[in-house]
């Protein structure tokens, strides 16, 4: 199984670098994972990371893209859906479904997405 070493601990991932174990996640690891994706985490990133993690804990799955965009609209006071969507992609250029999930320590979404 692929893995990386972090603060003296071996962190297992899947083939594409998503954490195998949700509990291994912490803020430092998020920074490390974001760095791998060439993303420097800002407060705006953190708001979404925390929100999707909470959502995942509650529902055992990541939120639908529409729900995420809606949340962003609320958090950032962006009324226009398209603008909110653009905002999400500016934060996570490779798409929120995968890139945000990865940094938040969630599994990769499966299916036709």
């Amino acid at each position, binding site marked *: 199984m692929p893995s990386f070493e972090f603060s003296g601990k071996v962190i297992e991932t899947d*083939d*594409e*670098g998503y954490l195998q174990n949700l509990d291994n996640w912490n803020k430092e690891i998020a920074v490390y994972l974001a760095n*791998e*994706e*060439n993303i420097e985490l800002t407060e705006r990133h953190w708001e979404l990371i925390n929100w999707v993690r909470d959502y995942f804990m509650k*529902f*055992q*799955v990541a*939120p*639908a*893209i*529409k*729900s995420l965009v*809606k949340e962003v609209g609320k958090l950032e006071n962006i009324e226009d859906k*398209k603008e909110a*969507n653009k905002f999400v992609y500016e934060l996570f250029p*490779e798409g929120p*479904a*995968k890139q945000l999930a*990865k940094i938040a320590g969630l599994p990769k*979404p*499966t*299916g*036709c*997405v």
Partner: protein
Amino acid sequence: MAKTKTAYKVPVLTGEIKVPKVVPGASAYEKMYHGENDDMTALGFPASLEDGWETKAVGIFKQLLTHNKALKDYMDICVRCGACTDKCQFFLGTGDSNNMPVGRAELMRKVYRYYFTPAGGLFKSLADAEPFSERMIKKWFTYYYQCSECRRCSYYCPYGIDTAVITMAARDIMDGIGLGQKYSTQIINKVFKIGNNLGIPPAALRNTLDDLEEEMKDATGKDVKIPMDEEGAEVLLVPPSADFFAMPHMESLAGYAKVFYKAGISWTVSSYASEAANFGMFIGNYKNTKEINKRVWDEARRLKVKRVIVGECGHAWRALYNYSNTMNGPFDFLDNKYRQPAHICDFTLGLIKDGVIKMDPSANDDKIVTYHDSCNVARASRIGEMPGGQFTVPRELIKACANHFFELRDGANRAQTYCCGGGGGILTDEVMNVRIAGSMPKMQVIKEVMDNNGVNFLALICAICKTQFTKMYPLYGFDAEMVGGVHQLVSSAIVL
């Protein structure tokens, strides 16, 4: 380390489709991840490749040849005329001779000749026969997963060889010896465990639907509902689970909901049968295909619905329309006044024609629309009552919803449609370069209507096509929002 955009090889779009220089092994470097142990065993396969797999593979191959007469014919009757060679989008995009349909099929035919023909066993090289070997099975794993089972080559084959049957058999043999593909096996296991490809549990699904209801209320002022697990509803709607998660897919779900709302027909989605897709078909495994298919009909019985309608998903339509009756029928508990199952496009168009719902096509006047025929709908099924309905029904529906529509070039659409490059279980990131290469022919003809007719919207009825084109468009320099579902057009145009 994740592959970044810069690592991708994106072709330049010229509007032309040229036959590339042939380079054997050009795309050998792109491979699928192996199936994970838990997923493999859950599907009834060995967890991983074990010693002595060669003997086992021959046994499974033999069984398939016995039970699937077509496969045996396809092994025997190819005369290597070459009609298929330049018909595959993956060959056109990669130039790899193993991606010529005949080249890919030869990987299996060589093995077939060795074990199952007298000449192959006795005169190996003369008969061009080869036993299973590590080298050979690696080639199988590579190239039978660079095929989208789209059957474009079969359309041109003078003998009618269905190459997808060969790919499916190869994948089934590989799964049977423990050499699985992670993407499909993981998804199938999620369907069995949770009910859908995405792994959305009931509470999450309800939450998502609530959000969409709220959005529709904000946008229209109407109480458009999406009922879930509602016993006694008239219709069970089974969409691909991407409609519950992804964009632009969910815009089509809003479209279906508005149609039911306006027509006043009671309906429900199910948290158990929350998936129309059937990846069992992609891996060519009868047992898994049948099990996944069964969920829909079990749920139709349990919820006591009268009709089953399938959402926008290409291969799902084939799996449900073509195989349900023989696999899990008969459906005499449903109201046989209606086609069972019915395609959502057929359903919506019927309501428009009967005057039950009305469209205002000017609502889509910002869009200049074209339509891509999805392989499994175009070449493997029908929609509605008339032959060719799989072509006419979606087009009629689009034209009812939008004033500006242009067809893609002849020879690249309808029954001759090029695959989007992501079908058949290869819509996964580790083979992104294969997906990009495979998308090239279709992207060329789309570019043509963009340039000539100003087309700015690609209408689709397949979840895979939607995801694939949404991923491809930005790589080729186009806005991902130019891709969407036919029911996205319905959603905008319907007069509520």
